[in-house]
Protein backbone atom coordinates (compact mmCIF):
# COMPACT_ATOMS: atom_id res chain seq x y z
CA UNK A 1 0.00 0.00 0.00
CA UNK A 2 1.16 3.50 -0.80
CA UNK A 3 2.32 5.47 2.20
CA UNK A 4 0.17 8.40 3.20
CA UNK A 5 3.32 10.51 3.03
CA UNK A 6 3.96 9.82 -0.65
CA UNK A 7 0.33 9.86 -1.68
CA UNK A 8 0.53 12.86 -4.02
CA UNK A 9 3.91 11.94 -5.50
CA UNK A 10 2.69 8.46 -6.41
CA UNK A 11 -0.62 9.57 -7.80
CA UNK A 12 -0.73 8.95 -11.57
CA UNK A 13 -0.58 12.08 -13.72
CA UNK A 14 -4.09 11.70 -15.07
CA UNK A 15 -5.48 11.74 -11.52
CA UNK A 16 -3.42 14.77 -10.56
CA UNK A 17 -4.59 16.64 -13.64
CA UNK A 18 -8.21 15.99 -12.78
CA UNK A 19 -7.64 17.31 -9.27
CA UNK A 20 -5.86 20.42 -10.62
CA UNK A 21 -8.67 21.17 -13.06
CA UNK A 22 -11.05 21.39 -10.11
CA UNK A 23 -8.90 23.99 -8.32
CA UNK A 24 -9.55 27.72 -8.41
CA UNK A 25 -6.83 29.77 -10.05
CA UNK A 26 -5.22 31.08 -6.89
CA UNK A 27 -4.88 27.57 -5.48
CA UNK A 28 -3.36 26.46 -8.76
CA UNK A 29 -0.80 29.26 -8.54
CA UNK A 30 0.05 28.11 -5.02
CA UNK A 31 0.40 24.52 -6.19
CA UNK A 32 2.74 25.71 -8.94
CA UNK A 33 5.09 26.96 -6.26
CA UNK A 34 5.26 23.63 -4.46
CA UNK A 35 7.65 21.84 -6.79
CA UNK A 36 8.92 21.85 -10.36
CA UNK A 37 6.92 18.75 -11.22
CA UNK A 38 3.76 20.35 -9.88
CA UNK A 39 4.48 23.49 -11.87
CA UNK A 40 4.97 21.47 -15.06
CA UNK A 41 1.82 19.52 -14.37
CA UNK A 42 -0.22 22.64 -13.67
CA UNK A 43 0.89 24.11 -16.98
CA UNK A 44 -0.54 21.10 -18.77
CA UNK A 45 -4.00 21.66 -17.30
CA UNK A 46 -6.36 24.17 -18.91
CA UNK A 47 -7.69 26.99 -16.77
CA UNK A 48 -11.40 27.86 -16.70
CA UNK A 49 -12.12 31.26 -15.25
CA UNK A 50 -15.38 33.13 -14.84
CA UNK A 51 -14.00 36.64 -15.05
CA UNK A 52 -10.64 38.35 -15.30
CA UNK A 53 -10.34 42.09 -14.74
CA UNK A 54 -7.26 43.87 -16.00
CA UNK A 55 -7.32 47.19 -14.21
CA UNK A 56 -5.00 49.82 -15.65
CA UNK A 57 -3.11 52.12 -13.28
CA UNK A 58 -0.67 55.04 -13.29
CA UNK A 59 2.88 54.87 -14.66
CA UNK A 60 2.20 51.87 -16.89
CA UNK A 61 1.04 49.68 -14.08
CA UNK A 62 -1.85 47.26 -13.94
CA UNK A 63 -3.58 44.85 -11.68
CA UNK A 64 -5.17 41.52 -12.51
CA UNK A 65 -8.23 40.49 -10.54
CA UNK A 66 -10.43 37.42 -10.61
CA UNK A 67 -14.09 36.91 -9.94
CA UNK A 68 -13.40 33.83 -7.82
CA UNK A 69 -10.63 35.19 -5.63
CA UNK A 70 -9.67 38.79 -5.17
CA UNK A 71 -7.66 40.59 -2.59
CA UNK A 72 -8.57 43.71 -0.72
CA UNK A 73 -5.17 45.20 -1.48
CA UNK A 74 -5.32 47.63 -4.35
CA UNK A 75 -1.76 46.87 -5.45
CA UNK A 76 -0.60 47.59 -8.98
CA UNK A 77 2.39 45.99 -10.72
CA UNK A 78 4.36 46.84 -13.85
CA UNK A 79 1.97 46.29 -16.73
CA UNK A 80 4.49 44.14 -18.60
CA UNK A 81 4.58 41.64 -15.73
CA UNK A 82 0.82 41.57 -15.45
CA UNK A 83 0.55 40.99 -19.21
CA UNK A 84 2.96 38.07 -18.89
CA UNK A 85 0.86 36.67 -16.06
CA UNK A 86 -2.27 37.10 -18.15
CA UNK A 87 -0.70 35.31 -21.12
CA UNK A 88 0.43 32.55 -18.76
CA UNK A 89 -3.22 31.74 -18.03
CA UNK A 90 -3.81 31.09 -21.71
CA UNK A 91 -0.59 29.19 -22.33
CA UNK A 92 -2.67 26.05 -22.44
CA UNK A 93 -4.74 26.22 -25.66
CA UNK A 94 -7.79 24.80 -23.86
CA UNK A 95 -7.81 27.51 -21.19
CA UNK A 96 -10.86 29.73 -21.31
CA UNK A 97 -12.42 32.69 -19.61
CA UNK A 98 -16.03 33.77 -19.71
CA UNK A 99 -15.49 37.51 -19.28
CA UNK A 100 -12.39 39.64 -19.80
CA UNK A 101 -12.78 43.18 -18.53
CA UNK A 102 -10.08 45.68 -19.41
CA UNK A 103 -10.80 48.49 -17.02
CA UNK A 104 -9.08 51.82 -17.53
CA UNK A 105 -12.05 54.10 -17.41
CA UNK A 106 -10.18 57.04 -15.92
CA UNK A 107 -7.00 56.29 -17.85
CA UNK A 108 -8.21 57.03 -21.37
CA UNK A 109 -6.28 60.26 -21.72
CA UNK A 110 -3.02 58.65 -20.54
CA UNK A 111 -0.85 57.79 -23.57
CA UNK A 112 0.61 54.91 -21.56
CA UNK A 113 -2.80 53.24 -21.70
CA UNK A 114 -2.34 52.86 -25.45
CA UNK A 115 1.09 51.36 -24.82
CA UNK A 116 -0.35 48.80 -22.41
CA UNK A 117 -3.07 47.77 -24.84
CA UNK A 118 -0.54 47.56 -27.66
CA UNK A 119 1.77 45.38 -25.56
CA UNK A 120 -1.13 43.18 -24.53
CA UNK A 121 -2.23 42.76 -28.15
CA UNK A 122 1.33 42.02 -29.32
CA UNK A 123 1.83 39.38 -26.65
CA UNK A 124 -1.50 37.71 -27.26
CA UNK A 125 -1.01 37.65 -31.01
CA UNK A 126 2.22 35.69 -30.54
CA UNK A 127 0.45 32.49 -29.55
CA UNK A 128 -2.80 30.68 -30.24
CA UNK A 129 -6.09 32.55 -30.03
CA UNK A 130 -7.43 32.90 -26.51
CA UNK A 131 -10.87 31.59 -25.64
CA UNK A 132 -12.88 34.48 -24.25
CA UNK A 133 -16.64 34.76 -24.58
CA UNK A 134 -17.24 38.35 -23.60
CA UNK A 135 -14.91 41.35 -23.81
CA UNK A 136 -15.62 44.46 -21.78
CA UNK A 137 -13.33 47.31 -22.72
CA UNK A 138 -13.86 50.17 -20.32
CA UNK A 139 -11.54 52.93 -21.49
CA UNK A 140 -13.33 56.25 -21.77
CA UNK A 141 -11.17 57.60 -24.60
CA UNK A 142 -9.27 55.32 -26.93
CA UNK A 143 -8.03 56.33 -30.35
CA UNK A 144 -5.61 53.49 -31.15
CA UNK A 145 -8.30 51.48 -32.87
CA UNK A 146 -5.88 49.16 -34.64
CA UNK A 147 -4.59 48.03 -31.24
CA UNK A 148 -8.11 47.42 -30.05
CA UNK A 149 -8.89 45.40 -33.17
CA UNK A 150 -5.67 43.44 -32.61
CA UNK A 151 -6.94 42.50 -29.13
CA UNK A 152 -10.07 41.18 -30.83
CA UNK A 153 -7.99 39.33 -33.42
CA UNK A 154 -6.03 37.60 -30.66
CA UNK A 155 -9.24 35.94 -29.50
CA UNK A 156 -10.81 32.75 -30.77
CA UNK A 157 -13.69 33.80 -33.06
CA UNK A 158 -15.60 30.63 -32.21
CA UNK A 159 -15.76 31.70 -28.56
CA UNK A 160 -16.12 35.48 -28.70
CA UNK A 161 -19.83 36.27 -28.54
CA UNK A 162 -20.03 39.74 -27.06
CA UNK A 163 -18.11 43.02 -27.10
CA UNK A 164 -18.99 45.81 -24.71
CA UNK A 165 -17.12 49.10 -24.80
CA UNK A 166 -17.74 52.72 -24.01
CA UNK A 167 -15.38 54.83 -26.11
CA UNK A 168 -16.33 56.60 -29.33
CA UNK A 169 -15.50 54.51 -32.37
CA UNK A 170 -14.56 56.26 -35.56
CA UNK A 171 -15.88 55.20 -38.96
CA UNK A 172 -12.49 53.67 -39.70
CA UNK A 173 -12.52 51.83 -36.36
CA UNK A 174 -15.90 50.20 -36.91
CA UNK A 175 -14.89 49.25 -40.46
CA UNK A 176 -11.72 47.58 -39.14
CA UNK A 177 -13.77 45.72 -36.56
CA UNK A 178 -16.46 44.68 -39.02
CA UNK A 179 -13.79 43.28 -41.34
CA UNK A 180 -12.60 40.73 -38.75
CA UNK A 181 -13.85 37.16 -38.90
CA UNK A 182 -14.99 37.62 -35.29
CA UNK A 183 -17.56 40.26 -36.21
CA UNK A 184 -19.77 37.95 -38.26
CA UNK A 185 -19.95 35.49 -35.34
CA UNK A 186 -20.79 38.04 -32.65
CA UNK A 187 -24.17 37.91 -30.95
CA UNK A 188 -24.06 41.08 -28.92
CA UNK A 189 -22.49 44.52 -29.01
CA UNK A 190 -22.85 47.33 -26.51
CA UNK A 191 -20.87 50.30 -27.76
CA UNK A 192 -20.49 53.96 -27.00
CA UNK A 193 -20.97 56.32 -29.90
CA UNK A 194 -20.21 55.06 -33.38
CA UNK A 195 -19.28 57.61 -36.00
CA UNK A 196 -21.41 57.32 -39.13
CA UNK A 197 -22.08 53.56 -38.89
CA UNK A 198 -23.09 51.34 -41.76
CA UNK A 199 -26.25 49.69 -40.41
CA UNK A 200 -25.89 46.79 -42.82
CA UNK A 201 -22.98 45.56 -40.71
CA UNK A 202 -25.21 45.10 -37.64
CA UNK A 203 -27.96 43.02 -39.16
CA UNK A 204 -26.59 39.66 -37.97
CA UNK A 205 -26.50 40.65 -34.28
CA UNK A 206 -29.07 39.60 -31.68
CA UNK A 207 -28.40 42.34 -29.16
CA UNK A 208 -27.38 45.76 -30.36
CA UNK A 209 -26.79 48.87 -28.29
CA UNK A 210 -24.89 51.98 -29.32
CA UNK A 211 -25.23 55.71 -29.83
CA UNK A 212 -25.17 57.70 -33.04
CA UNK A 213 -25.44 61.38 -33.83
CA UNK A 214 -28.33 60.93 -36.24
CA UNK A 215 -30.34 58.09 -37.68
CA UNK A 216 -32.28 58.15 -40.92
CA UNK A 217 -35.50 56.23 -41.70
CA UNK A 218 -33.69 53.81 -43.99
CA UNK A 219 -31.42 52.69 -41.16
CA UNK A 220 -34.35 52.13 -38.79
CA UNK A 221 -36.04 50.13 -41.53
CA UNK A 222 -32.89 48.02 -41.99
CA UNK A 223 -32.88 47.18 -38.30
CA UNK A 224 -36.56 46.28 -38.30
CA UNK A 225 -36.15 44.17 -41.40
CA UNK A 226 -33.16 42.37 -39.96
CA UNK A 227 -35.29 41.35 -36.98
CA UNK A 228 -38.36 40.50 -39.07
CA UNK A 229 -38.28 39.00 -42.51
CA UNK A 230 -41.39 40.45 -44.06
CA UNK A 231 -41.15 38.37 -47.21
CA UNK A 232 -42.26 35.18 -45.48
CA UNK A 233 -43.32 36.53 -42.11
CA UNK A 234 -40.61 34.67 -40.26
CA UNK A 235 -38.05 36.14 -37.93
CA UNK A 236 -34.45 35.99 -38.87
CA UNK A 237 -33.96 33.24 -36.28
CA UNK A 238 -33.47 35.70 -33.48
CA UNK A 239 -34.42 34.42 -30.05
CA UNK A 240 -36.99 36.16 -27.90
CA UNK A 241 -35.26 38.90 -25.94
CA UNK A 242 -33.24 40.06 -28.94
CA UNK A 243 -33.13 43.82 -29.13
CA UNK A 244 -31.69 46.93 -30.75
CA UNK A 245 -31.32 50.02 -28.64
CA UNK A 246 -30.01 53.02 -30.53
CA UNK A 247 -29.48 56.30 -28.69
CA UNK A 248 -29.48 59.41 -30.85
CA UNK A 249 -27.47 62.37 -29.66
CA UNK A 250 -29.17 64.72 -32.17
CA UNK A 251 -32.92 64.47 -32.54
CA UNK A 252 -34.35 61.52 -34.44
CA UNK A 253 -37.00 62.55 -36.91
CA UNK A 254 -39.79 60.17 -35.88
CA UNK A 255 -42.41 61.56 -38.31
CA UNK A 256 -40.09 60.93 -41.25
CA UNK A 257 -39.46 57.37 -39.98
CA UNK A 258 -43.21 56.76 -39.75
CA UNK A 259 -43.73 58.19 -43.24
CA UNK A 260 -41.04 55.84 -44.55
CA UNK A 261 -42.83 52.89 -42.91
CA UNK A 262 -46.13 53.93 -44.48
CA UNK A 263 -44.52 54.01 -47.91
CA UNK A 264 -43.66 50.35 -47.30
CA UNK A 265 -47.27 49.42 -46.61
CA UNK A 266 -46.92 49.27 -42.86
CA UNK A 267 -50.19 50.14 -41.19
CA UNK A 268 -49.19 52.60 -38.52
CA UNK A 269 -50.74 52.08 -35.14
CA UNK A 270 -49.44 53.58 -31.93
CA UNK A 271 -49.91 50.89 -29.26
CA UNK A 272 -47.90 51.67 -26.13
CA UNK A 273 -47.26 48.58 -24.03
CA UNK A 274 -47.80 50.39 -20.77
CA UNK A 275 -49.40 53.65 -19.75
CA UNK A 276 -46.07 55.22 -18.83
CA UNK A 277 -44.91 54.86 -22.42
CA UNK A 278 -47.49 57.28 -23.77
CA UNK A 279 -45.73 60.49 -22.70
CA UNK A 280 -42.28 58.95 -23.11
CA UNK A 281 -42.44 57.60 -26.66
CA UNK A 282 -43.79 59.32 -29.72
CA UNK A 283 -44.76 56.06 -31.36
CA UNK A 284 -44.86 52.36 -30.40
CA UNK A 285 -45.39 50.03 -33.34
CA UNK A 286 -46.03 46.29 -32.98
CA UNK A 287 -44.90 44.01 -35.78
CA UNK A 288 -46.69 40.71 -35.30
CA UNK A 289 -45.53 37.56 -37.00
CA UNK A 290 -44.96 33.88 -36.49
CA UNK A 291 -41.63 32.28 -35.92
CA UNK A 292 -40.71 28.72 -36.74
CA UNK A 293 -38.29 27.28 -34.23
CA UNK A 294 -36.08 25.16 -36.44
CA UNK A 295 -34.35 23.40 -33.53
CA UNK A 296 -37.53 22.38 -31.78
CA UNK A 297 -39.38 20.29 -34.32
CA UNK A 298 -40.54 23.21 -36.43
CA UNK A 299 -42.92 24.46 -33.75
CA UNK A 300 -44.65 27.71 -34.57
CA UNK A 301 -44.58 30.59 -32.13
CA UNK A 302 -46.40 33.90 -32.38
CA UNK A 303 -44.03 36.73 -31.57
CA UNK A 304 -43.90 40.50 -31.90
CA UNK A 305 -41.23 43.05 -32.50
CA UNK A 306 -42.12 46.07 -30.41
CA UNK A 307 -40.58 49.25 -31.74
CA UNK A 308 -40.59 52.32 -29.52
CA UNK A 309 -39.36 55.62 -30.82
CA UNK A 310 -38.81 59.12 -29.52
CA UNK A 311 -36.43 61.94 -30.36
CA UNK A 312 -33.43 60.35 -28.65
CA UNK A 313 -34.07 56.63 -28.85
CA UNK A 314 -35.06 53.88 -31.26
CA UNK A 315 -35.66 50.71 -29.30
CA UNK A 316 -36.97 47.41 -30.60
CA UNK A 317 -37.23 44.01 -28.99
CA UNK A 318 -38.71 40.62 -29.75
CA UNK A 319 -41.00 38.88 -27.31
CA UNK A 320 -43.87 36.40 -27.26
CA UNK A 321 -47.01 37.89 -28.75
CA UNK A 322 -49.23 36.89 -25.83
CA UNK A 323 -47.01 38.80 -23.41
CA UNK A 324 -48.52 42.09 -24.51
CA UNK A 325 -51.84 40.95 -25.91
Amino acid at each position, binding site marked *: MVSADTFWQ*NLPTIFKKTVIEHLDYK*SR*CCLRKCSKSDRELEEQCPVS*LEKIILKLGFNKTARMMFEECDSELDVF*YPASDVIQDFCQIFRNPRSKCSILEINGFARGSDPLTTDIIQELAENLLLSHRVKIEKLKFWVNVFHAEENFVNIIKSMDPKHLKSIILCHVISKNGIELLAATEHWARLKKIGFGEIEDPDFDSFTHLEKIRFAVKTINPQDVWKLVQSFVKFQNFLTANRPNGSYFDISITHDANVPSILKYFQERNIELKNEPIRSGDLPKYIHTQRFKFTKVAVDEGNTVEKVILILKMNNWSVYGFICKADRYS
Partner: protein
Amino acid sequence: MSCEEPTTSPTPENNITVVSSDGKEFLLDLKLTEQSETLARLISNFEYDRTDVKKDPVPLGNITSAQMQKIIEWLQHHRYYPKWEQNDIHYSTSFTFETWVEEYLNIPNNEMFELLNAANYLNIPRLFSTICRIMASRITGKSAEQIRTVLNIKTDVKNDVYTGIPIQEDSSSSEDGMSEISLSPSPPPI
Protein backbone atom coordinates in the same frame (compact mmCIF):
# COMPACT_ATOMS: atom_id res chain seq x y z
CA MET B 1 -29.45 13.95 -4.32
CA SER B 2 -30.50 10.90 -2.44
CA CYS B 3 -32.50 7.91 -3.54
CA GLU B 4 -34.61 5.34 -1.79
CA GLU B 5 -32.94 1.97 -1.79
CA PRO B 6 -35.48 -0.80 -2.08
CA THR B 7 -34.08 -4.02 -0.70
CA THR B 8 -33.57 -6.70 -3.30
CA SER B 9 -31.99 -10.06 -2.72
CA PRO B 10 -29.57 -11.09 -5.46
CA THR B 11 -30.41 -14.28 -7.25
CA PRO B 12 -28.00 -16.33 -9.37
CA GLU B 13 -29.70 -14.97 -12.50
CA ASN B 14 -29.11 -11.33 -11.74
CA ASN B 15 -25.66 -11.30 -10.23
CA ILE B 16 -22.05 -12.16 -10.96
CA THR B 17 -19.19 -13.17 -8.73
CA VAL B 18 -16.04 -11.04 -8.65
CA VAL B 19 -12.85 -12.20 -6.98
CA SER B 20 -10.51 -9.73 -5.30
CA SER B 21 -6.71 -9.97 -5.48
CA ASP B 22 -6.61 -11.71 -2.08
CA GLY B 23 -9.04 -14.38 -3.26
CA LYS B 24 -12.26 -13.24 -1.60
CA GLU B 25 -15.45 -13.69 -3.60
CA PHE B 26 -18.16 -11.02 -3.80
CA LEU B 27 -21.64 -11.55 -5.17
CA LEU B 28 -22.49 -8.50 -7.20
CA ASP B 29 -25.93 -7.54 -8.47
CA LEU B 30 -25.88 -6.87 -12.22
CA LYS B 31 -27.75 -3.63 -11.59
CA LEU B 32 -24.79 -2.39 -9.53
CA THR B 33 -22.27 -3.22 -12.23
CA GLU B 34 -23.92 -0.72 -14.57
CA GLN B 35 -22.03 2.01 -12.70
CA SER B 36 -18.70 0.42 -13.62
CA GLU B 37 -17.91 0.77 -17.28
CA THR B 38 -15.27 -1.96 -16.99
CA LEU B 39 -17.67 -4.49 -15.49
CA ALA B 40 -20.56 -3.44 -17.71
CA ARG B 41 -18.45 -3.96 -20.82
CA LEU B 42 -17.24 -7.32 -19.55
CA ILE B 43 -20.77 -8.48 -18.80
CA SER B 44 -21.91 -7.33 -22.21
CA ASN B 45 -19.01 -9.06 -23.99
CA PHE B 46 -19.56 -12.37 -22.20
CA GLU B 47 -23.35 -11.99 -22.31
CA TYR B 48 -23.55 -12.51 -18.55
CA ASP B 49 -26.84 -10.61 -18.55
CA ARG B 50 -28.44 -13.68 -20.17
CA THR B 51 -29.87 -16.25 -17.79
CA ASP B 52 -28.78 -19.20 -19.95
CA VAL B 53 -25.11 -18.25 -19.93
CA LYS B 54 -22.84 -19.77 -17.29
CA LYS B 55 -21.17 -16.99 -15.33
CA ASP B 56 -17.57 -17.63 -14.35
CA PRO B 57 -16.15 -15.63 -11.44
CA VAL B 58 -14.47 -12.42 -12.62
CA PRO B 59 -10.97 -11.96 -11.21
CA LEU B 60 -10.14 -8.39 -10.24
CA GLY B 61 -6.40 -8.73 -9.73
CA ASN B 62 -5.82 -5.05 -8.97
CA ILE B 63 -8.40 -4.72 -6.22
CA THR B 64 -8.12 -5.99 -2.67
CA SER B 65 -11.10 -7.28 -0.69
CA ALA B 66 -11.08 -4.16 1.51
CA GLN B 67 -11.23 -1.92 -1.56
CA MET B 68 -13.93 -4.08 -3.12
CA GLN B 69 -16.01 -3.82 0.03
CA LYS B 70 -15.68 -0.04 -0.10
CA ILE B 71 -16.53 0.02 -3.81
CA ILE B 72 -19.66 -2.09 -3.28
CA GLU B 73 -20.74 0.30 -0.55
CA TRP B 74 -20.51 3.13 -3.11
CA LEU B 75 -22.32 1.18 -5.82
CA GLN B 76 -25.15 0.26 -3.49
CA HIS B 77 -25.62 3.83 -2.32
CA HIS B 78 -25.80 5.07 -5.91
CA ARG B 79 -27.82 2.13 -7.20
CA TYR B 80 -30.84 4.22 -8.21
CA TYR B 81 -29.02 7.37 -9.18
CA PRO B 82 -29.33 8.53 -12.78
CA LYS B 83 -26.54 7.55 -15.09
CA TRP B 84 -23.45 9.67 -14.56
CA GLU B 85 -22.76 12.15 -17.30
CA GLN B 86 -19.37 13.73 -17.50
CA ASN B 87 -19.83 17.45 -17.94
CA ASP B 88 -17.21 19.83 -19.10
CA ILE B 89 -15.50 21.33 -16.07
CA HIS B 90 -17.03 24.75 -15.88
CA TYR B 91 -15.69 27.94 -14.47
CA SER B 92 -16.15 27.00 -10.84
CA THR B 93 -16.22 23.60 -9.23
CA SER B 94 -18.72 22.78 -6.53
CA PHE B 95 -17.14 21.55 -3.33
CA THR B 96 -20.48 20.74 -1.80
CA PHE B 97 -20.96 17.04 -1.13
CA GLU B 98 -23.82 15.13 0.36
CA THR B 99 -23.25 14.06 3.95
CA TRP B 100 -23.04 10.37 3.06
CA VAL B 101 -20.24 11.09 0.56
CA GLU B 102 -18.31 13.20 3.07
CA GLU B 103 -18.47 10.39 5.61
CA TYR B 104 -17.66 7.75 3.01
CA LEU B 105 -14.54 9.62 1.88
CA ASN B 106 -13.43 10.67 5.33
CA ILE B 107 -10.46 8.32 5.02
CA PRO B 108 -6.66 8.73 5.13
CA ASN B 109 -4.83 9.84 1.98
CA ASN B 110 -3.33 6.43 1.35
CA GLU B 111 -6.74 4.77 1.41
CA MET B 112 -8.04 7.51 -0.84
CA PHE B 113 -5.19 6.72 -3.23
CA GLU B 114 -6.13 3.04 -3.32
CA LEU B 115 -9.79 3.83 -3.78
CA LEU B 116 -9.02 6.23 -6.62
CA ASN B 117 -6.97 3.55 -8.35
CA ALA B 118 -9.80 1.06 -7.90
CA ALA B 119 -12.36 3.57 -9.22
CA ASN B 120 -10.14 4.18 -12.20
CA TYR B 121 -9.55 0.45 -12.83
CA LEU B 122 -13.25 -0.33 -12.64
CA ASN B 123 -14.05 2.90 -14.48
CA ILE B 124 -16.63 4.28 -12.06
CA PRO B 125 -16.72 7.90 -13.24
CA ARG B 126 -18.95 9.26 -10.48
CA LEU B 127 -16.64 7.91 -7.79
CA PHE B 128 -13.50 8.97 -9.65
CA SER B 129 -14.76 12.51 -10.15
CA THR B 130 -15.99 12.78 -6.56
CA ILE B 131 -12.64 11.68 -5.12
CA CYS B 132 -10.80 14.19 -7.32
CA ARG B 133 -13.15 16.95 -6.17
CA ILE B 134 -12.70 15.95 -2.53
CA MET B 135 -8.94 16.05 -2.98
CA ALA B 136 -9.16 19.45 -4.66
CA SER B 137 -11.32 20.72 -1.82
CA ARG B 138 -8.60 19.75 0.66
CA ILE B 139 -6.03 22.04 -0.94
CA THR B 140 -8.13 24.81 -2.43
CA GLY B 141 -7.67 28.19 -0.78
CA LYS B 142 -4.44 27.09 0.87
CA SER B 143 -1.02 28.71 0.52
CA ALA B 144 1.85 26.93 -1.19
CA GLU B 145 3.32 25.97 2.17
CA GLN B 146 0.00 24.64 3.43
CA ILE B 147 -0.43 22.61 0.23
CA ARG B 148 3.06 21.20 0.71
CA THR B 149 2.03 20.12 4.19
CA VAL B 150 -1.27 18.58 3.11
CA LEU B 151 0.24 16.70 0.18
CA ASN B 152 3.65 16.21 1.81
CA ILE B 153 5.48 17.75 -1.12
CA LYS B 154 9.22 18.26 -0.77
CA THR B 155 9.92 21.51 -2.59
CA ASP B 156 12.58 21.66 -5.25
CA VAL B 157 11.79 25.21 -6.35
CA LYS B 158 14.10 27.96 -5.20
CA ASN B 159 13.42 30.70 -7.70
CA ASP B 160 10.47 31.55 -9.80
CA VAL B 161 11.37 30.41 -13.29
CA TYR B 162 9.70 33.41 -14.91
CA THR B 163 10.79 36.24 -12.72
CA GLY B 164 13.92 34.77 -11.15
CA ILE B 165 12.68 36.00 -7.81
CA PRO B 166 12.88 33.64 -4.84
CA ILE B 167 9.52 32.24 -3.95
CA GLN B 168 8.40 33.11 -0.47
CA GLU B 169 8.01 29.92 1.47
CA ASP B 170 5.20 31.31 3.53
CA SER B 171 3.98 34.80 4.04
CA SER B 172 0.60 35.41 5.48
CA SER B 173 0.81 39.05 4.45
CA SER B 174 1.36 38.16 0.83
CA GLU B 175 -1.43 35.61 0.79
CA ASP B 176 -3.94 38.26 -0.05
CA GLY B 177 -1.65 40.08 -2.44
CA MET B 178 -1.50 39.92 -6.18
CA SER B 179 1.86 38.20 -6.17
CA GLU B 180 0.31 35.09 -4.68
CA ILE B 181 -2.20 35.01 -7.47
CA SER B 182 -0.23 36.04 -10.45
CA LEU B 183 3.40 35.41 -9.55
CA SER B 184 4.18 39.04 -10.29
CA PRO B 185 7.21 40.55 -8.59
CA SER B 186 6.98 43.19 -5.92
CA PRO B 187 5.18 46.41 -6.85
CA PRO B 188 7.31 49.28 -8.10
CA PRO B 189 7.83 52.37 -6.01
CA ILE B 190 5.24 54.96 -6.94
